[in-house]
């Protein structure tokens, strides 16, 4: 199940490895080369370039999996978890990612404006 407002970039892989439906929330960003094999993902998360969410993992809301970082298998990540760094350090971030929602909506607007010009998808009509 796929929510609204998600951005899936090139070479991103979203695979359902489990028996149940894979649930993806709204306004997530799957950057280039990211791999999503988990079970659930909430809203406003960001999987950065080549991030890897392993199977059976649940992601909450507003998480950030950093570049080339990975989660463990069968893990439940609370909201606002950040995985970053070369060793996969984690922390829960407080405070607001103030501009993130604004940037995301601008990103969506831009794509909606420019993709139809260059990506000739057949319209439903």
């Amino acid at each position, binding site marked *: 199940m796929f929510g609204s407002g998600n951005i899936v970039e090139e070479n991103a892989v979203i695979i359902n490895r489990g028996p149940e439906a894979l649930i993806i929330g709204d306004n997530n960003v799957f950057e280039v080369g990211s791999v999503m094999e988990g079970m659930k993902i909430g809203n406003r998360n960001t999987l950065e370039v080549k991030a890897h969410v392993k199977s059976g993992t649940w992601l909450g809301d507003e998480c*950030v999996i*950093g570049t080339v970082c990975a989660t463990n298998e069968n893990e439940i990540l609370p909201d606002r978890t*950040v995985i*970053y*760094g070369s060793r996969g*350090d*984690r*922390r*829960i*971030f*407080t*405070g*607001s*990612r*103030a*501009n993130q*929602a*604004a940037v995301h909506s601008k990103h969506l607007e831009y794509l909606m404006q420019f993709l139809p010009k260059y990506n000739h998808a057949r319209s439903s009509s």
Partner: protein
Amino acid sequence: MLALNAPPGQAPVIQPFVHYRCLCSSPGPSATASRTPSTTRTATPTRTTHRDDKDMDIDPTTTPTTTTDPTTSSPSADLVPATAALTLHQQHHSHHQHEQDSAGERSKTPAEVYDSGNNSDPHGSHSLSRLYFCDSCDEIRCPKCAQDEIVCFYCPNCLFDVPTASVKSEKHKCSRNCFECPICQSTLSVVSEDPDAGMITAVAATGQYHLACNVCQWNSQEIGMNFEKPTGLAGNPLMDTWTTDCKTEDSLPDVKEFDRLKDHLEKYFRVHSLKPGLPSSLLTSIQSGTLQSLRYVSTSSHKAQQSDDIAHYTPAVQVMEDTENLEKLMSITSLSETTTMKQRLRQLQNQTYSTQRLQPQRIQLRIKRSRRCRSCRHILVKPEQKSQSTGFKINLIALSQLPNITIAGLQPMIVQTVSRVILRFTNPRHEEAHVSLRYGDGAIPNHGVVIHSPSFTISPFNVVWEYEVGTMVTAPGAVQEDVYERTANSTSIALDITPAAAGEVKIPLLVTFTFKSHKLQSDTEPSALPTQLVVSGSKDHPPPEVELIDKTVAFWTVIGFGEALPTFS
């Protein structure tokens, strides 16, 4: 050793390599070797200027002239302590050869051969990319025989060239908006709460800007750090209230305590200042307040107590038992609340255990360095002064002066079987060059090496040929027999190698490289040429600005070909 290439569970694969040896760190004669070496003759370099870095002594007997002096006892004795320091852990066998270069004006006695690792190792065997070439001494210089000097200071984030005068006052940190995240040490960016996007939070009275980290999502609002304007944050007086930064260093309690202790003990120095045990520099070092004086204080106060009693010193600050911190540390439930060593060591003022008290630090400045030849003091590499430009004003690297030897063809090595190896020599210079090779046959183990073309020329480098596809087989007229292949500016030769033992196959090759070079007017040696120049000048002919003369460099290389498999029995 690239363990990445080996399949798991096996030893790392030994890769082939080509290394060049610099004259400086030649280990001494057999006295320092732990294995029994096969020394033929003890040799000493004619230039006793090459000193090992670790001993840090400049040889007072530097002789700028280049007389050939095969064996002198004193330089060899000097070499022994230098190399005794070197051979701490590494066993090696040494082999000395005295090499007289027939063609050159100078004689170089290159060093011996020993087991070296794949990378540039502490005994002076480097790949060509790490070496420099001093064109006034005409010798290879490794990074150890080059002296570093600072060219400029710059901030790695904003690339601002900090003038040298203000570096010290800013404590070697960037004085603009460059901060590093206390959590992950990546660069912070200045972010504003953007009212345009509709994210109007309660407009804080203190302002709109704060610092945010893009990697770990930390922002300075977590510690209540907000700014009104986005520039000049380091000098912002508000910063001082949040940080115990270096500007207020003198008011830190431990610095004040140290000053008091110094004042207390100083009067004892004045009384006993004539004691022979105390160096006279001690008083000056105390007055200058260096940390070294602390060491002297402890030893000298011990001496003072033997003869006199120092009045008891009561410190102004009592060090309390840090029970609060102790309790906090004992009751840690999650490691995310404690700081790591790396985070703590970035904040040396208070080195807190709690992540809540970590503060963003200003970014440390970096330097650009220039390297200088230790013997002749000419500059080898000098980067440009501007921090944004990565080029060099002077760039005397060995890659552009010496032939680059690469292994162009390699057959698998089996003990006692002849295998053929192709070595390609690439000439980076714009004039034709001549190379002659010799195998250093004193090495252990002694593999049989047959060089098919021990002496050959290489065509010069021409930029135009870079764009031509395919090899150009040129026959520049000179007859060279048995060269395997000749392309644009490289010559390949064949070697037949018979490994004598299994294991890594390494052979030493003495390469003698003769090239034409412009003779500089300044470093004239006593020879007939300068007088000819003077004569021709006086006859109102414009004296030739440059002359092309032959110069020769001889150096040892160690070439490894990987492992030799044992024969099938």
